[in-house]
């Protein structure tokens, strides 16, 4: 069973000629089949956690360990992490002009699976996945994220999640900027992947809204660069009613 283990993870970022510590000792274990929600106020370091796990070069790891099934993730390049089974659905997916969605998906699937998918089954697989996400077939011929609406970008991220079948999926504010219909479609996509029982999900969000569609097993409150409280789904209800105030006004040390 795949397990992502994060131990005492410390991360800095360079900004304005100064080094700033963003993550101050994060501990978290995500097992295959589990869904963890990480909730926290803006600026608490949630996205830094997501991007550090994926290996974004902007962030410097200064301490701690991250392993996937015992393998040292921090030693791996970005593409190696993806091939090892980590997937990051980005909050702001990047435009890649000149590369069509279909070419991108196939190149990516080939890299992740270690061999090119058979063309006939692949075309069918992509078509069906797109239909489930209410994506028009013409989407495949557009350039990656170029001119996509916010909702299209997020659906495209979830399409990749469905096709690439990672061991651990990190969803960085996938719910932000979505209207209710789009949120439902995207959540259904995430749930289809979760229901396979083969993915551990780390759902990073500012709002509790998405948790009405995706039920977490564990909820963690993130503040000041670390997890300050962990609980079950009921913790999300508390946050819904009380907000993050208790954690941002010095309550974090409690």
């Amino acid at each position, binding site marked *: 069973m795949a397990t992502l283990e994060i131990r005492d993870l410390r991360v800095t970022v360079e900004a304005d000629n100064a080094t700033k510590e963003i993550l101050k000792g994060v501990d978290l274990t995500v097992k295959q089949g589990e869904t963890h929600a990480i909730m926290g106020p803006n600026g608490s370091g949630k996205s830094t956690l997501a991007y550090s796990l994926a290996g974004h070069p902007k962030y410097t790891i200064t301490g701690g360990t991250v392993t996937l099934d015992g393998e040292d993730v921090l030693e791996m390049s970005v*593409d190696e992490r993806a091939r090892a089974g980590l997937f*990051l659905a980005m909050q702001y997916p990047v435009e890649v002009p000149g590369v069509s969605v279909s070419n991108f998906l196939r190149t990516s699937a080939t890299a992740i699976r270690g061999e090119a998918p058979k063309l006939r089954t692949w075309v069918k697989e992509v078509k069906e996945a797109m239909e489930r996400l209410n994506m028009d077939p013409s989407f495949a011929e557009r350039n990656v994220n170029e001119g996509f609406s916010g909702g299209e970008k997020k659906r495209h991220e979830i399409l990749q999640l469905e096709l690439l079948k990672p061991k651990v999926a990190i969803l960085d504010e996938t719910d932000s900027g979505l209207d209710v219909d789009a949120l439902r479609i995207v959540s259904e996509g995430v749930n289809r992947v979760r229901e396979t029982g083969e993915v551990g999900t780390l759902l990073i969000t500012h709002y509790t809204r998405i948790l009405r569609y995706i039920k977490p097993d564990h909820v963690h409150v993130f503040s000041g660069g670390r997890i300050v409280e962990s609980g079950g789904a009921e913790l999300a209800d508390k946050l819904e009613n009380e907000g993050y105030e208790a954690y941002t006004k010095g309550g974090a040390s409690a």
Partner: protein
Amino acid sequence: MAEAQNSPTLESTRAGGPPPLGSTTAGAVAVAAESTVATRMSAPPSFDVADFPVPHGREEEWRFTPLERLRGLHDGTAVATGDGVKVDVQAPEGVTVETVGRDDARIGKAGTPVDRVAAQAYSAFEKAGVITVPKETVLTEPIRIAVHGEGGVAYGHQVVELGAFAEAVVVIDHTGDAVLAANVDYILGDGAKLTVVSVQDWDDKAVHVGQHNALIGRDATFKSFVVTFGGDLVRLHPRVAYAGTGGEAELFGLYFTDAGQHQEHRLLVDHNTPHCKSNVMYKGALQGDDAHAVWIGDVLIEAKAEGTDTYEMNRNLVLTDGARVDSVPNLEIETGEIVGAGHASATGRFDDEQLFYLMARGIPADEARRLVVRGFFAELVQQIGVDDIEERLLVKINEELEATV
């Protein structure tokens, strides 16, 4: 007659990240023209080099070009050495291939030199090549002109003439090392169809300057691919004018500018005749320190050219820091009675965020770069229609990419 449906537009977009330092994407639409295609030149067109002052570098037509790297082509000090280039022509049956003297009447019919180096080439060549495809002759194989640099200085002139309703593909392939100033005239008879592929696959030190003039007959179709990979400095002037109504020009270009290279393409489409079309699309990738690409796209719609339909576009993809693009589309319209006119220029950057995104999907860095560049060029490469050239370009693109990593 419809009014202009597409008003001239200028878009300047970029993908992700800040534009590379020193890039410019400028454009202008001159209507009541103070600065026009004609007035921006420092001298009127002429076949005589003496009619052009030696450029000092601040002239509009020279301001992007490093004159000191022209190896004397611009100031009269580059003297032909006799071992400049070797030219080999392979032509299918039915085609006439001649070498003629300066007095041959077919020389210079398609256009007049517009700058000092083009005039220098015209004034200095001793023999010209003339290739003729008789009327109604439809070739099934390309005419191939191999120009191989042997390390010296050379001036040249080539004429390609198609009779009425003739159809031909011409490949001009530049390789080796040379300092070359050479002009090419393409003359298309009524209803003729000519596709030209000019490949600049020079060695690193080569200098190549030239003016390519196409004169398009009534209802004739001219399709040009200018493909520039090599050389220390390449500066080409593809130019088009129409000899009758119904002419169509498609000007495609593809360049891959490496560290230290200067590659400059200066186009002019002169809509001097009613009811003609033109479509220009040039795409370039740049990588490495002091890679410098210049694209000037001038389209002139003269007052008499009613019913004109034209569009021009330049796209650049900057792969690394330290490269520079100057892209200047310019549309000059003297009549509103046209079908359409537009232009666009955009310089995008393959940046760390794009690389991260592709790598985060398992794609290794070198493959990610290849994916982006091949995707960027694909629509152009596929249109060439000469298999061995298409394959060579794809191989070349891969080689260029491997050189960076």
